[in-house]
Structures are given as structure tokens and as C-alpha cells.
């Protein structure tokens, strides 16, 4: 077993990037991601990480550098938050289309306006369809672990897709948690050096990013969608291999006291831990409530989600982002799509909660379950509301 160290999660994330032996770090500081970049900058300057550190002038350039460096065959890393992700959004679509296995940590923060530095998922939802594999983490250990998982998965010849590791800003990024470090030999065994399939090199010239006529564009997009969907088997395989190495097994959809539950809370990200406390309290009162946590956001685990909710009569889905003018939150939309057309599908009540870092305590989850129960009884079966708004 590796050493357990109390450490700020951002620093642990940067240490994982060091252990993953990246060749290029290209990032622009933005709250709350800053500590990751700062620590990586220290590691490179101190000679503890043999990598090129690019001080770029914007996030658009940060990811553009990664596209270029990854295309030459260099393992590349970037991280950002909020407005930074919005600025690099153009390049996110290019990285996936070119099948470049870049890894990005996203320290989730709300999108302006009003200007806010606090945590929710509106940043990542703005690039939901960009073609990256997207995972969510619940605590510091999961962030640390997923750096290795992400690189191994991304660089798999059957995958070759970029990966976003979502970690909630401040809630995770700025807290000190016990992190179990993995010995370097084990990391090296799990994550072999990157062997690019194609790379930019004068000895064997290739063209990347050529244009496509309408006569071939749809075929190119179909190929991209198929590879993202079929990466699911490799995602499962990689999590299994990581579990066998460390004893920590991950799944696309994780459940807590959910087996026989009539009502299930559905969460994504760090609020899952708070929700589990609420579930314990409700179980003690004899209520039939469980918890379903989405770890994998893209590709969306439709089958696993259906399997995780076989008996539930009611789902209370917590979204951390608003889809303004749409049917509610993005997670609830996906959940409803996953269940549509199935007999005996549960009612889905959707709360947008904790936007811009507003605290959501265990008591709030209990109130949401209560409220959903009342509303559904009164016939508002697929309701949606922003939780806790002062009228």
C-alpha cells in the first residue's frame, strides 16, 4: 500500500501529473484551478518533472499548444476552470476530432455572469458535446487516481480520445484530504510510455487537421461518435486494471443503499458524499431512500444507469447547472432520455441546486426528497425547479 499523506487536492493532482511523467504542461492560471498550475510550474522549475512548461497568454493557446505537442507524440496536460474553458472551447472540438489523447483537469466553476468564482457544473456543460471522455470525481483520492486512469485510457489505441477529469472547484480543489499515493514503480507498470499511432515528424510526414468536403464530413463524425461510444468497454477495462493494482475500483454509475429503494437521489460530483449522509439519516428514519452517483458523463452510461434503478418509483435528480430555456438541468435531461420508452419508468423530479457554490447540506437533500414527494403526489410528476430560491 502506498503512503497516505494529508495534502491539498490540487497539489495531489499536480503530483499525479508529475508521476504520470508528462512531457508538456500548457496552462493558464484561473481560480480555482490555479494551485495545480502553480505546483506544476514549481515541479518543472525544480527539475522534479522533466517537462516543457508553456506560459501561454490565454486558455485558447493553452489547449492549442497541447494539440500541437500531443500531435508530435508528447504526453500533454492542461487544466482550467469556467471562463478559461469557455475560451478554449473551440479547441476542445479539434482535440477530439484529431483523436489526440490530451488529459485535462477541470476545476469546475460557474460561468459568468454574474461574475462568480464558486463551484458548479455550468462550465463543463457548455462543452458537453465536444467529444471528450468526461468523468466526475467525488473526493481527492479519485482526482489523484483518475490522472493515471485518464492517460492510460486516452492513449489506448482503441480509444485515442482526450479526457476531462471534473473536480469541483474549492469543494475539492482547495481542501486538504488524506491521499494514498501510488508507488512510482506501480504507476510506471500501469501507465507505459505514450506510443502515438500517428505523429508529426519530418521522417514520415502526415497531415493532421485537413479539411473535409460535405461528401465525407458525416462519415468522419460517425467514426468519431462510434469510437466515443465504444470506448465504454475500454473505460471498464481500465478501471478494472486500476482496481486490481490499488484496490480502488470505479464504475460508471455507483450506488449507495440503492438496491431496494423506492426513491433514489441522483448526483454527480462531490455532492454525492453529502447526499450519502442524507441517505443514512433518512434510512435511520425508516425511509426507503438510496443514492445513485454518476461518475461517467460522456459516453453517457445508459445501460448502467438503467441497471442501477430497477425498482425505484421516483428519482430526485440534482443538477449543478441550468439549461436556460430548456427542460431543466442537463443531467435530468439525460436521465429522462435513458428511461424514455421503458415500462414502469420512475417519475423524475429535477432540482437545480448548489449553483455558484451555494452550500447544499444533508438537510437540503432531505428537503428536496420531501418536496419531490409532495409535488409528485400532487401530480407534478416530471417537475423541475431551482432549489432554495427566495421568492
Amino acid at each position, binding site marked *: 500500500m502506498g503512503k497516505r499523506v494529508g495534502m491539498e487536492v490540487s497539489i495531489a493532482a499536480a503530483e499525479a501529473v508529475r508521476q504520470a511523467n508528462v512531457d508538456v504542461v500548457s496552462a493558464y492560471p484561473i481560480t480555482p484551478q490555479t494551485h495545480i498550475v502553480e505546483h506544476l510550474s514549481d515541479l518543472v522549475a525544480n527539475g522534479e518533472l522533466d517537462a516543457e512548461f508553456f506560459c501561454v497568454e490565454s486558455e485558447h493557446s493553452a489547449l492549442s499548444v497541447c494539440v500541437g505537442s500531443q500531435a508530435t507524440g508528447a504526453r500533454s496536460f492542461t487544466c482550467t476552470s469556467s471562463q478559461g474553458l469557455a475560451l478554449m472551447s473551440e479547441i476542445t472540438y479539434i482535440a477530439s476530432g484529431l483523436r489526440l489523447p490530451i488529459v485535462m483537469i477541470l476545476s469546475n466553476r460557474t460561468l459568468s455572469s454574474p461574475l462568480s468564482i464558486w463551484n458548479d457544473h455550468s462550465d463543463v456543460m457548455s462543452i458537453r458535446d465536444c467529444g471528450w471522455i468526461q468523468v466526475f470525481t467525488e473526493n481527492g483520492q479519485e482526482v489523484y487516481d483518475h490522472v493515471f486512469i485518464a492517460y492510460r485510457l486516452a492513449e489506448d489505441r482503441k480509444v485515442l480520445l482526450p479526457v476531462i477529469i471534473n473536480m469541483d472547484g474549492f469543494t475539492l480543489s482547495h481542501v486538504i484530504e488524506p491521499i494514498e499515493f501510488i508507488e512510482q514503480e506501480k504507476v510506471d507498470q500501469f501507465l507505459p510510455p505514450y506510443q502515438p499511432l*500517428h505523429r508529426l515528424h519530418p521522417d514520415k510526414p502526415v497531415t493532421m487537421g485537413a479539411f473535409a468536403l460535405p461528401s*465525407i464530413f458525416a*462519415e468522419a463524425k460517425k467514426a468519431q461518435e462510434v469510437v466515443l461510444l465504444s470506448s465504454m468497454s475500454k473505460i471498464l477495462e481500465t478501471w478494472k486494471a486500476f482496481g486490481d493494482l490499488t484496490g480502488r475500483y470505479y464504475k460508471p454509475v455507483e450506488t449507495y443503499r440503492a438496491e431496494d429503494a423506492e426513491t433514489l437521489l441522483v448526483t454527480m460530483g462531490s455532492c454525492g458524499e453529502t447526499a450519502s449522509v442524507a441517505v443514512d439519516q433518512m434510512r435511520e428514519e425508516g425511509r426507503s431512500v438510496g443514492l445513485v452517483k454518476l461518475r461517467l458523463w460522456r459516453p453517457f452510461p445508459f445501460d448502467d444507469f438503467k441497471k442501477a434503478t430497477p425498482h425505484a418509483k421516483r428519482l430526485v435528480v440534482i443538477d449543478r447547472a441550468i439549461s436556460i430555456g430548456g427542460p431543466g438541468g442537463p443531467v435530468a435531461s439525460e436521465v429522462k432520455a435513458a428511461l424514455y420508452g421503458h415500462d414502469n419508468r420512475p417519475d423524475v423530479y429535477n432540482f437545480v441546486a448548489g449553483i455558484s457554490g451555494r452550500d447544499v447540506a444533508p438537510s437540503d437533500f432531505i428537503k428536496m426528497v420531501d418536496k419531490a414527494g409532495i409535488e409528485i403526489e400532487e401530480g407534478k410528476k416530471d417537475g423541475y425547479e431551482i432549489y432554495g430560491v427566495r421568492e
Partner: protein
Amino acid sequence: MTKPESEWTWKELTVGNVVLEPGNASQYRTGDWKTNMPVLSKERCIHCGLCYIFCPDMAYSLNEEGYFISDLFYCKGCGICAKECPTGAITMIEEEK
């Protein structure tokens, strides 16, 4: 691949749509973009080569007789050669279908 691009299936594309064969842009017929094509009047041509220099697509090349001739496979019909020709030896005329 020997068959035309419009017949490729999605399964036949390279990973990331990488073009493995260098320089194959030369196979791309930009000549079918044009409406007007340049026609040279040899009587007026002074062999100065300004058409060759100004052509943005490098469609012009020197033939054995010493005239600069536009390769209509690449010529997009922009008319810059006709505009720049100091003796008015190049005329843009509508291309026949």
C-alpha cells in the same frame, strides 16, 4: 485509396482523419471553382512572366515555346493574371460547360 472520396464509408477513414500520403492536395481539382478562364493572345505576350508571378495558385508554368500557360486543373479563374498583364494579352472568357 483508389475509389473516390465520396464513396468511402466511415469505417475506411484513418484515425483522426490523418492524411498519410504527403502532398496529395495536388490531386484536388480547384479548377472546377471557376466561371471565367484566362485565354492568352500569343501575339501580345512579351514573356514577362508577371502572370506566373502573381498567380495565387501557382497554376502558371512555362511551356516549351516560352509562353506562360495556366493549368486549368488548378486555375480558379480569379482574373489576377489578366488584371496584371502589362500588354493586355490575357482575356477572361466564360468557361463552356
